């Protein structure tokens, strides 16, 4: 009897052990190393020296591009996560309704998600090219434009394109998270609401949204993390140019580490980013969980 009890007590941990080992080796350990490096002197060639206190953090915050990049990162995360969540939700609602070709529509939605981000970003780079871009070609051939338009006329527009590509590739993930949530809602709720005289908007507000909230929380938290850490789109389209004005925190720290050979400040930036992410994702999760408890 005792043996069975002991076995039951330890068995779950035994099953979890492989994942825990993997997480420790590939997640926890690298994070600890980055924390250690952020307080160490790192030479331009890459040799790691002694403890330098907060010097790397000071240098990171005093970096001339830091303010712009923090602002860009906020715009990038809020616009990409916010707009893709809204559009993903609408598409999921559409895909949840009965219509012919629904399966094909669902497959099409998944395409951007199934393609590598670098390939997506490179494809968009070609689409918006001034000289030979597909967008100009199509619009000129259709007679909508008389002369080619420079779709990258300023860095603000280029950054807006980057956000647009971010939204495009993020929508499928939100759509499928929400779709999974929508499919788990019992039809009886809608029937009851219809009997009570609720219209589309009332059903949406009082039935759909509360019941889909757990799926939305998961997709939003994961998206905040993915989008904040997203590197390929900005790096492929502008590499942060001109003069870091389209950089986000992740691309800036990469440039600082491997182009400017300022590895100390770069590791400090990655720690700052990690802390910001923990706070933002944590606050969002707590707020969402409170909301769920209120239901």
């Amino acid at each position, binding site marked *: 009897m005792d043996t069975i009890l002991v076995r039951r007590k330890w068995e779950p941990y035994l099953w979890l052990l492989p994942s825990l080992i993997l997480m420790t080796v590939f997640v926890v350990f690298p994070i600890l190393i980055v924390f250690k490096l952020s307080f160490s002197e790192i030479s*331009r*060639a*890459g040799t790691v020296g002694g403890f330098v206190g907060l010097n790397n953090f000071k240098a990171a915050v005093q970096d001339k591009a830091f303010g712009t990049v923090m602002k860009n990162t906020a715009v990038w995360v809020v616009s990409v996560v916010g707009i893709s969540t809204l559009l993903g939700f609408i598409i999921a609602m559409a895909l949840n309704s009965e219509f012919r070709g629904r399966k094909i529509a669902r497959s099409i939605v998944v395409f951007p998600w199934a393609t590598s981000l670098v390939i997506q970003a490179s494809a968009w780079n070609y689409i918006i090219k001034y000289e*030979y871009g597909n967008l100009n070609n199509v619009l000129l051939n259709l007679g909508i434009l008389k002369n080619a338009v420079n779709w990258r006329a300023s860095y603000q527009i280029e950054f807006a394109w980057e956000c647009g590509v971010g939204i495009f590739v993020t929508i499928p993930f939100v759509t499928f998270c929400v779709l999974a949530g929508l499919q788990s809602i019992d039809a009886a709720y809608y029937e009851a609401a219809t009997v009570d005289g609720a219209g589309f908007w009332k059903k949406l507000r009082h039935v759909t949204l509360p019941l889909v909230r757990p799926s939305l929380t998961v997709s939003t938290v994961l998206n905040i993390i993915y989008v904040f850490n997203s590197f390929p789109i900005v790096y492929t389209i*502008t*590499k942060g*140019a001109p003069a870091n004005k389209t950089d986000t925190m992740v691309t800036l720290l990469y440039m600082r*580490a*491997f182009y400017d050979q300022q*590895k100390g400040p770069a590791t400090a930036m990655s720690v700052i980013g990690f802390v910001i992410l923990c706070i933002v994702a944590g606050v969002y999760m707590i707020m969402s969980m409170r909301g769920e408890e209120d239901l």
Partner: protein
Amino acid sequence: MKKLIALLAALLLALSCVGGALAEDDITLDVIICQYGPNTQEWFLGKGMNGTNFVEKFEAENPGVKLNLEVVSWNDVYTVVSTRISNNNAPDILNIDVFADYAAEGLLEPVSDYCPEELYGDFFPQFIAQSVLDDTVWAVPDLASARALYYNVDLLTEAGVEKVPETWAELEDACQAIVDFYGGDVYPWGVDMTTDEGQAAFAYYVWGNNGGFVDEEDNWTVNSDANVEAVNYAIGLVNKGYTNPNPATQTRYDLQDMFAAGKLAMLIAPNQLPTIIANSGNEINFATADIPHNEGASSGSVGVMDRVMAFKDTTLNEEETAKRNEAIGKFLTFFYKPENYVGWVSMEDFLPAVNSAVAALVEANPAFEAWLNVLANAKFYPTAKPEWNSVKQGVINVEQNALTGGDVKTLLDELQATLTK
């Protein structure tokens, strides 16, 4: 249990003997080579060397020396090397463009410790001079390229440009003539101020105005009056609509494609451009000339040179180090043997770094001779100064800030202040 322990002990003993035997007889060199083009990987590791490859051929000719050779793309090589240095796992031999950071931190072996004398005497002296820090040579050149002005003869002729521009004023006149004739269909002048190669744009203009990165005493002078004037001139070309529309994001490769497609009339590019144009399938009528300069200043080509260097291995004793250095010497001797090196240089269309390859290369391609003359008068980036990397990124930053309206003098003053503090 005892049997098991005895078996394990015997196994360990046997393994240690094998290990000892390997250590005594063979030496393995860790080598990182940069990917210069599509043929690099094939030449070193595939079948690109007459059905065999560099590693196989080297190991067959040099018994006792094994190569653990990796071809790494230029995009990744700095990340790879820096990570390996951080992990105390630097390669034995590295092919890259920069060396000063590694030398300044005492990570490199002096060339005199591993390079055979006969081979050392074969390198172009002006190339060797580019790899000297504190009176010691830390790297040897592996190849070079030189830049010149390329112009589309037909486009210039049709636009009524009778003389290829030699001075900045003539360049502006030619640009205006092209704008007047073609409107927005042809860009007169190509400018690349991207993070890829914005430092080259800086060099073209400041050297064409008797400015530069350093003064005669080798002190940084990035904010000299000549440099301010030169960068203002370059930014002025962009603002007047004489260039490609997005110099901060359009790389030299984009410009070369535009030139090959007849969309760009003039650009400064390396000696490989004719091959790129030929491979593009386009047929354009083009020619080369000196890079335009300011009135009263002289024109000079920009030379770009890459290097091969050897990292120290502090885990080895004196005898082992001598043996390793001898192996590195064998690697270099084999690499620069004319029968191997000529194939390597011409395969990716570069210019040689050793005298012994010149005759064979000129015989194979007479156009090489003119480029060798260009190279002989070329100026090089001050890569022997440890701050070079910061300066390189700094001048790109200045250009990109100036493109968005920043004041060139203020920006260059700020950059200079970071170098002299």
